[in-house]
């Protein structure tokens, strides 16, 4: 097994090739754009909230396999979750890809991004859509990371 298999797992490659919820959302209540100027990754997140809960979520944009797969899996994951759950997920996910300690595996599918930890330069690819998501929920329109 090659080392990059740790990062470019089948699931990631699949989500990169066939991203889920990859379209605009006609009706949405929240929206934000994320941009990493250093690598050109762009992602837009649209959300339709029902009270505190995400009813619908989609993304558009272009980027590397890691950022595309991350956005795709994000949309699958947060649907029907409320703000608090999402905030916790964000924190756990952030820890997963940056912390040097082993992270408790309660992240489900998101756990496949743990391999990113070994590639510090790619962490921003995995977190871009999450930052955009948090910005959307907080009412910001645009964020930049690098």
């Amino acid at each position: 097994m090659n080392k990059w298999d740790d990062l470019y797992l089948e699931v990631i490659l699949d989500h990169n090739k066939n991203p889920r919820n990859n379209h605009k959302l006609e009706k949405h209540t929240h929206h934000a754009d994320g941009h990493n100027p250093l690598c050109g990754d762009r992602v837009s997140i649209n959300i339709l909230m029902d009270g505190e809960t995400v009813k619908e979520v989609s993304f558009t944009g272009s980027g590397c396999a890691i950022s595309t797969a991350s956005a795709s899996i994000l949309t699958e994951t947060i649907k029907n979750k409320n703000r608090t759950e999402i905030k916790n997920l964000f924190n756990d996910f952030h820890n997963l890809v940056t912390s040097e300690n082993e992270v408790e595996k309660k992240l489900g599918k998101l756990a496949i991004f743990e391999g990113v930890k070994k590639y510090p330069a790619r962490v921003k690819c995995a977190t871009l859509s999450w930052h955009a998501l948090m910005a959307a929920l907080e009412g910001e329109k645009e964020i930049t990371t690098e």
Partner: protein
Amino acid sequence: MLFENIKDDFPILEQEINGKKLVYLDSAATTQKPTEVINSLNNYYTNNNSNIHRGVHTLSQRATKDYEQSRKIITKFIGAASSKEIVFVRGATEAINLIANSYVKPLLNKNDEIIISQMEHHANIVPWQMICEEKKAKLRIIPIDNNGELILEELNNLVNAKTKFISVNHVSNSLGTINPIDTIIKVAHQNNIRIMIDGAQAVQHLEIDMKKMDADFYCFSGHKIYAPTGIGVLYGKKELLEKMQPYQGGGDMIKSVTFEKTIYNDIPNRFEAGTPNISGAIALGEAIEYITQIGIHNITKYENDLLNYATSKLKKINEIKIIGEAKEKAGVISFVIDGIHPHDIGTILDSHGIAIRAGHHCTQPVMDFYNIPATARASFAIYNDKNDIDKLIEAIRKCIEVFS
């Protein structure tokens, strides 16, 4: 063969990365250092370290001598008329900022123009934008064509009475294009315009001679020509440097200081305020002696062979598109692969022990021109060989497989 065992001169290349022998193809970002250069640093700090210019003790005299000796080596290497024309700076970026601030800014009035090209490194864009903004002057751009060559005819349309300065790179770091700087310099001088050439990607590949080239200013970074980081060279014609105001103030750039009146030093010291990167300057001299021994014309030829070999191999892969196909190129190939982001290419090649760069290479306007976010870039130096390129090709094929 000159280049046969040359990898042995570069201790970093002995290591394995992810279980594979390192193949370093990122020399346009920074080159690796031969043992001589590493030893030069070691020797300086083990035997001669001292502050320079002002000391009467033995260490200071040694350090001063070696520092000034390096200036002489550089003078000869680039064919300058005098070692007074050689200013030590941090790198190409600082050299361009220095000229922008000390030479060009004082000349610049509202609506004046500065010409650069569409293929410049950010280091040769942003300093001009900054002074243009301050002085309400304008930046004019020589466009490029699809091959990544300057559209030279446009230069004649751009030059006019308001043009106060031209600055273009000798070799493009993202496209590899060798620009026809002799022609550009001629056009500049026919119109009485002073010109700077950014040689950051040129001196390590091509023979240069300031007396023949006749550029008014030229610059390069040590770390891209086998020397340490933190040191670089600004060349300027003596008569221009002499008229220029200093850039930074401090020790060594003055003749005398009172609170009423400070008299600036002669060139080149006027532009070297404070304690310079002494060990870096000396090691840069060492690096230049190292490549001079190999012979820069031999290097040009050797690297050109590599470039042709790599280009023809890459062209055989259907999914690959080479970005930058100028007729004259030096040591750099940028490419994109259908459906695979350059960063993914970079990471996957790294897992095979191959170091390339993925990104905009500090040339966003070039990316915009080709309407791509980034490229993958392999760049060559004297320590590369065809075997390295074969490994690159093989890893690229695997990468395409994974994503197919």
